[in-house]
Structures are given as structure tokens and as C-alpha cells.
């Protein structure tokens, strides 16, 4: 197990959500999903709501549904700043499904809706549902 790891943390305004050693992190960037390995160049990414996955040194994966935010790659560490973060077991699947449906309906109507807001709500709901699939597994 000589694979290199780096320090990974997820911060929200409410708390330090997670702090672990990670082998890699796969995150939903605004311009597409990307993967961070050890030794990545210093970078700042804008994130959109979506599923984030990281691999622990012992090979297990951690899944987190994150909201809009940023990912900062520094020399020895990677930090995610996000408006919200939830583990699979914290997600209320029914609520997320309802939110998804609501957002879709609103996007269909197209008139008189705050489009970007509905879009963001939809992204958040989809992210939650995706991450919730991993509940009980992986962790």
C-alpha cells in the first residue's frame, strides 16, 4: 500500500464536515467532472451541486452530496468549500425525489420561473439521489 495520499477536507459554514487522507477525489466541476490525485498543480475549481467521491487509504470510498462551492488544490492538501454536504445516510430520498419533480415541473413550464434557481434545485436533488444510492455500501 505504498500509494500516496493527501489531506482532504470538506468545510461548510456550519462545521468541518470531513477530514481524511485520500488517494483520490472525484468532484463535480462546473465545467465537468474531474479527478484529483496526489501532486496535482495548485488549482481552484468552481463546483456545482453533485456527487463527490473520495478514496480512503485502505481502499474504501466515501460518497458525499455537495452543493455549489469551490475546490482548492494546495501543495499538500485539498479543500472543498461548499454550501451543503451530506452523507448517503443523511439524505431523505423521498424529499429529494419530490424536490426533483418540483424542479422539473417548474422547468417545463418555462414561463415566469427563476430558471437558474430551478436548475440549481434540480441539480441538488439529482446529486442527493445519486449519492443516496450508495447508502449502506461503500462506507
Amino acid at each position, binding site marked *: 500500500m505504498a500509494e500516496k495520499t493527501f489531506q482532504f477536507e470538506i*468545510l*461548510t*459554514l*456550519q*462545521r*468541518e464536515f470531513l477530514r481524511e487522507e485520500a488517494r483520490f477525489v472525484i468532484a463535480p*466541476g*462546473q*465545467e465537468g467532472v*474531474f479527478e484529483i490525485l496526489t501532486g496535482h*498543480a*495548485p*488549482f*481552484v*475549481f*468552481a463546483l456545482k451541486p453533485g456527487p463527490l467521491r473520495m478514496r480512503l487509504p485502505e481502499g474504501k470510498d466515501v460518497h458525499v452530496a455537495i452543493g*455549489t*462551492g*469551490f475546490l*482548492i488544490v*494546495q*501543495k499538500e492538501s485539498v*479543500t472543498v*468549500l461548499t*454550501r*451543503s454536504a451530506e452523507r448517503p445516510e443523511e439524505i431523505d430520498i423521498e424529499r429529494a425525489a419530490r424536490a426533483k419533480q418540483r424542479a422539473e415541473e417548474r422547468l417545463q413550464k418555462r414561463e415566469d420561473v427563476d430558471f437558474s434557481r430551478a436548475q440549481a434545485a434540480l441539480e441538488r436533488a439529482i446529486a442527493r439521489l445519486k449519492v443516496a444510492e450508495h447508502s449502506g455500501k461503500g462506507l
Partner: protein
Amino acid sequence: MPSTRDIRRRIRGVKNIRQVTKAMNMIAAARLRRAQTKAEAARPYAERLSAILQDVFASGASARHPLLAQRPVKRVGLVVVSSDRGLCGSFNAGILREAGRFVEEQTADVGLITVGRKAREFFQRMEITIDQSFPQPSREVRLEEVGAISKQIITDYTSGKYDQIHLAYARFISVLKSEPTVTQLLPIPKPETDGAAAVARMVAYQFEPEAEELLGALLPQYVEVLAYGSLVESLASEQAARMVAMKSATDSASDMIDALTRKYNRVRQTAITTQILEVVSGAEALEE
């Protein structure tokens, strides 16, 4: 001279009040602790976010984002953060005084945006127009509640309704001290690219999306975090003020009970003395 029964009734009344103020004192203390924890938990996040902002600026991205644009100031927006509830000493009075001073100092028109019932009622009583009012966020200070306020502020700024937006809130210093403060929210004051710090952090970051586009995502979040921080601090200041006010109310009630008890004893003694005198003089009259 009040009767002993009147005094006893008053003592009972004051005791009941003391019980209430004491309970409020303890509740405020617990809520203060929670608000302080919240403020501390948000600090690393806020620091990291403003560090990114500085890095973006340091990268030389021409900062032409609308939220940074300085415009000639024709109308200023002032967000006044008060509380929904009273019984917290001079907390709201302090904020409103500071807000009033700010309005006087401005040469431009000032539009008011109130947060919390107390500020709204105050300006309504003074018959000053309020552009918009928000309720005070719940004690959890949820991000959605803050987001609603910060989004509105950003829209009002970009639409040109205000050319500058300031925020008046009670900065939390310690349990015994909070300071009504007015800070500028928009346009976002450019962080000073302090020479030494900039060199120390001379890691050249790359950005995705490009720095300028990233700024578009970053700045609204930054405003939201600033608003969140102020609202949490205001909550901590309110609870601290209430805690202190209720402590002194409890102490006053105790003093009052002491004074009333002394009076009660004196009245009671006088009454007994009078009665004895009456009995004795009655007996003496019979003996003669």
C-alpha cells in the same frame, strides 16, 4: 401604611417575575453559547473563501465584475439587522442609533432594508419609508434564510436600485460588549494586496473556469458568507445583551424582595406592638 397582606402579595409577585427573568437569563446563556460556536465554526470557511478571492485578484484578473463596480453614488442601501424580540437591554436601541447616524452622514438618498421586527417597527413609528423588510432568521441561521437576504441585496445592487449597500449590525466583542457597526457590503471593497502577504502566498493558482468567470461564482458566495457572519454575530450579541439584562433584572428583583421583606417585618412588628399595647392598656383600665 400598607397592610401586611398587601406587602406579602407584592413579594409574591416580584418573586414570580424573578423566576421568569432568571429562566430567561439561563436560556439566553445557552443560546449565546450556541451562537458563539456557530460563529467560530464559520470562521475557517470564511477565511478560505476570502483567501481564494485574494488569489484571484493576485492572478491579475481584471476585476470588472458588476459586484466590484464603483458607481457614482446616488442612492445608498442600508441593511439594519435588529432582533424580533425585545427584553435585551439596549441591543436594538444601539443598532438603530448607529443606523440613524449613518443616514444623517450620507449626502445621497438612503433606502432602508430591515431585518427583524424591532427595526421595522421603529422606522414605521418614525414614519420613515422602508424599502424592504425581512424577518430575523431563526436561531439556526439556516443558509436558505441568509441566501434570501443576500440574493435580494445583490439583485438590488446589480439592477441599479442602490449604488452602494451597507450593513448595520451588532459586532460581537465579548459577553459584556458588542459594538453597533456599519460596514460596506457592495460594491465589494477590493482586498488590499498587501505586499508581504501577497509574496508569501505567491502560489500561482490555475483556475477552472477562468479567473474572471470564477469570480462570477465566487463573489455572490462571498456576499452570502459576509451576511451569514454578520447575522450570526448579531444573534450572539442579542443573546449576550439579553443575558446581561435578565441578570440585572433578576438582581433588582432580589433587592426588591429584600426591601419588601424588611418592610413587611416592620409593619408586622408595629401591628403586634399596637395590639399588645391595646391589651395591656385594656387590662390596666379593668384593674382600676
